[in-house]
């Protein structure tokens, strides 16, 4: 047989079989069908043993089942396969968080965000651990970075507005809240927080 076209670019590192299985695993995890998801991830791992994705998926399932040791092992395998796997570090952070080790969780979330500022799970995890530890400087930076990529993400906008307020940066907080209300005028949380921010601003003006 003679091949007419050179389609070497189609010969990707990842294969369709891997991609389908990984995607099926992720979708089944999303709907809580963990057994099927596990089957898919295990098969995906056997098709492409060098890909970290299936181990991240298996780690997430173990986390859902509260099997923290299994989850840690799976995320570590993923990290070994790809030292730049942001999701795997986020997974390890979640394991640490569940174990009450907020310092490690904080560090792992930071590592995850360094690798991918777009990782929402890591961002929200960092926020949670920051709340626990009372330090918001780094989380503010990553929330801002995230919003640069996803300018309309209301939950992150609200979190940032709340942090600005906590940090006495009322003008910046107000601006974000107004942006939220321009997108969703009926957002009650934003309306309430805006009221509070405006009150603080008025107080500041009156005290000179």
């Amino acid at each position, binding site marked *: *047989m003679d091949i007419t076209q050179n389609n070497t670019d189609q*010969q990707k590192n990842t294969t*369709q079989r891997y991609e389908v299985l990984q*995607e099926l695993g992720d*979708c089944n995890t999303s*709907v809580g069908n963990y057994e099927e998801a596990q089957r898919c991830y295990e098969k995906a791992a056997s098709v492409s043993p060098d890909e970290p994705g299936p181990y991240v998926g298996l780690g997430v399932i173990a986390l859902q089942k509260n099997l923290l040791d299994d989850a840690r092992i799976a995320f570590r395998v993923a990290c070994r396969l790809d030292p730049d796997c942001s999701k795997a570090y986020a997974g390890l952070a979640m394991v640490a968080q569940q174990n009450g080790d907020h310092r490690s969780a904080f560090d792992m979330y930071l590592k995850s965000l360094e690798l991918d500022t777009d990782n929402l799970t890591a961002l929200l995890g960092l926020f949670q651990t920051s709340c626990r530890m009372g330090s918001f400087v780094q989380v503010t930076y990553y929330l801002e970075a995230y919003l640069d990529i996803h300018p309309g993400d209301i939950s992150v906008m609200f979190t940032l507005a709340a942090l600005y307020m906590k940090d006495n940066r009322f003008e910046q907080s107000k601006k974000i809240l107004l942006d939220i209300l321009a997108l969703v005028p009926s957002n009650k949380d934003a309306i309430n927080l805006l009221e509070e921010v405006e009150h603080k601003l008025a107080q500041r003006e009156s005290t000179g």
Partner: protein
Amino acid sequence: MMEKDHKKKAEPLVSVLLPTYNRRSVLPTALSSVVRQNYSNLEIFVIRDGGEDVSDIINSFNDPRIAFIDRSENRGKAFSLNQALLQANGKYIAYLDDDDLYYPHHIGTLVNALEDGSNCQVAYSDLHRTYCRIGPDGEREVLSKILDISRDFDRFFTLCFNHTLHVSLMHTREILEKTGTFNEKLNILIDWDLTRRLSFFTDFHHVHEITGEFYHPVGDSDRISARYHKEQDEYVKNFLAIRTTRPPKPWPKIKDMSIILTMDGLNEQVQDTLVSIWRHTFYPYQVYLPLRQSEFGKLDMEIPNVVTVPVESRASKEQSIDAALTECDGDVIAIVPAAFPIRNLWVEDSLYALVNSSVSKEAFELEDSTYKLWAVILNREDLDYARKNFPHLPLCQSLKAAGIIIRRVLAEEIPFQYDQLLEQARAAEKDGNWLKAAQTFGYIAEHYQNKLWIRTQAVRAFFKAGLHTQAAQLVHQVNQQRPTVDTLLLEARLNRRKDCKSAIEILEKAEQMLEFPFNQVLQNDPVFKEKI
């Protein structure tokens, strides 16, 4: 539905030719896929072209439709196919390589296409290119199935290069009386050689269905074509031999081209030009070389399709042309000075415009033609008329005097525009300019045939360009008609956020497609199970 259709009338006999050489591990899969066709009126020739004994495999099928040609000497694929063709009785001939496979509707689909009254004597379908990993025991693990070639029949392209794989092709047996059988002197591209010759005699019917797959191992390939591609000289030799093959006339679908080479005398430049023509011309041609008596015997080269025409020693350029004209039998004639620059498509651009022009009395100056090196192509009858009526005038003036309009080819008249656009789209993809790629694919789908496949290509570009709404609409349409693993994967990704359950259903279809036919047809077959 399809099954019902071909049961309405008697099923014509189809001969399936399956040569094999040292591929014991995969032969059972290939043969099973033929034996388990929905279409039953088959004679199946398995030709052992030397190598390992496979008689046990053949016998285990215990199918009277299988004829086993058991030869211990390795004489090549062309010889093997010809050996089977000598014995074939089918109205139609189909081919399968020992490492490829048909889907169960393959034969029925192609027979339907040939029996539908379109007068085509060749039909072909689409195939998956199946990337697979070979395990230590020789077992294949399917990794991806890509539909990377799906193209409507294009005679010009077929003459230039192959776009129809023989596994996907079926033709009448009787057409071989005109084309001849496989060329046993070739050791590569034998499929294209026959396909090219078939295109001289018939149009091809393209069925837009995926009816089988050919395997593409990841890593080193044991394919003959892959081996010979590495041996450039051998490849070029075969390639040129195919392009200069002229099957016996008459050619109902091809206008023969005669090239009359004008010159002041036989010299090295003439010989170089002849070589260049040989290397750069893909359209069937014959060169007519007017030579003086004294020059005969001085042409020391073996170039195919060169005819020498004796002319008087004092013959003018026009007299030489007229002498050549009496000898040549082309339907279109190109008159070219010996020093003319020859490059790819040097004559085919103008030729394509000429053969597709509906205007009579039109001649085309070749693209690189100049005042000093004037070259032209026109229909033979127009040239005959001009030379008969105005023999005393120089060539160009005689054409004008005969009322022939001489012009250059327009951009929209040149061949391979579809391919050029496709190349532009691919280049845009490589540059990451997905929007441009999507727009180019959109334009091609709008203006050319084979919309379905082009839309399949466009979907990915739309998705990558971030135009998810357009991508979602288009991919849904495509998947309703002819889903592929890639398009199903894409639709699932687009659906996932809003409807995870439907994404799962779509992905399960993709998974089944990757498993097919092993998950359904062959796996449930006890004979097949035993074989693998």
